């Protein structure tokens, strides 16, 4: 379908309390990144606090447009109240940004991509997309969503790590160990996370679990 309304998009409630309304995924857009966000209540989070890059790995430039309602954005520690038709453009990927809804039914449109590179579907889309299945402990579906994303980005450490979490919870212990080991090979920081992650309770004593 080539036409929809923002209120008809999937509504995926995230653990932090904001609601992801996937636009790129809905239309299978491959040329750029675009999504919408809503909040559960007035005063609730609508854009999670985050940065889009780290030193040495500069990430996306992002535009956040208030499509409906009002939102208070905090960017680099500064507050800005934005009404419908107003936007904040975060050029510096290192700046932390986030927003809360100030009115009922507020909608924020987020557009972003990395300058000078073809658009790649962000790995977090699979992680967000698997939240409802994980909440229902439908590990087969959560694993399928991650595995599908991994086909496009097979060496993405965070995707491998999250896939391993789902596999460990779903009883696929050998697959979980192999994917976790690969995540740690690509980025050793995941070993620290794994040791404190209850998702891995069932495999922490297995030989090969990152020490």
């Amino acid at each position, binding site marked *: 379908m080539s*036409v929809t309304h923002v209120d008809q998009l999937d509504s995926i409630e995230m653990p932090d309390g904001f609601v992801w309304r996937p636009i790129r995924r*809905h239309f299978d857009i491959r040329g*750029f990144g*675009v999504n919408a966000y809503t909040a559960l209540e007035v005063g609730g989070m609508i854009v999670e606090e985050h940065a889009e890059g780290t030193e040495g790995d500069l990430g996306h430039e992002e535009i956040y*447009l208030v499509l409906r309602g009002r939102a208070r954005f905090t960017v680099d520690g500064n507050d800005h109240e934005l009404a419908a038709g107003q936007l904040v*453009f975060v050029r510096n990927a290192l700046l932390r940004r986030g927003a809360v809804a100030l009115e009922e039914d507020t909608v924020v449109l987020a*557009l972003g991509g990395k300058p000078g590179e073809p658009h790649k579907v962000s790995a977090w889309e699979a992680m967000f997309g698997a939240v409802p299945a994980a909440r229902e402990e439908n590990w087969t579906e959560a694993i399928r969503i991650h595995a599908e994303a991994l086909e496009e980005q097979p060496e993405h450490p965070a995707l491998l790590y999250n896939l391993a979490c789902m596999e460990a919870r779903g009883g696929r212990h050998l697959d979980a160990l192999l994917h976790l080991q690969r995540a740690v090979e690509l980025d050793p920081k995941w070993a620290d996370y794994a040791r404190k992650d209850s998702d891995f309770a069932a495999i922490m004593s297995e030989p090969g679990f990152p020490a």
Partner: protein
Amino acid sequence: MTGVSSTEPAKPGGYEVLSLDDLDRVPYRGSGEVLRPLRRQLGFRPFGVNVWSADAAGDKLIPPHEEDSGHEQLYVVVRGTARFTLGEETFDAPAGTLVHAPAGTFRAATAAEPATMVLAAGGKAGEAFVASDWEAVHIAFAQLDAGDAAAGRATMEETLAHTEESWGRHYNVACYLALAGEHDAAFEQLRTAIELDRDKVMTWLPEDSDLDPLRDDPRFQELAG
């Protein structure tokens, strides 16, 4: 204004806040839609994003085209109601509607309510975005029509900074310079365009009213002959 492409450095400053109502209003040359050049004003580099607005119901909103650049596009109705034609289907799209148009699909829109505004985002799968000339061309001619020929020329000349040569780029600059009364410079650009692709230039040159100010000059006959 500063030209922006994905290969250029970012503008200084970490972030900025603005209202879509504060964007420039650029009459789209030849058909009258109103372009609000968001991407250029922000210096946004990852892909194309602009806004189109119409003051009155019935006004033209999005120029009829098929996006032969290969970009897929998403139109977001920000305010009012847009009457879209997508392919062979026509429908009304109230605020909050999202319209996805794959490359090659015919699309156009008019306003079905006063004060309608649509955001358009576009990019090509598998390719890094490079800003094309169309925004600068329309802005330059609008600046000329508004009486600021110097600003228009500066905007037009941004397009010549591209490293990839294009007959059309030099041809457009020639049109601008012809209308701005800078005939010597216009001939120089026209000559370069012909050197790059004479056949393509000749499909436009005989009927192009932009070049009328040059037609009585012997140099025009020499080039056209």
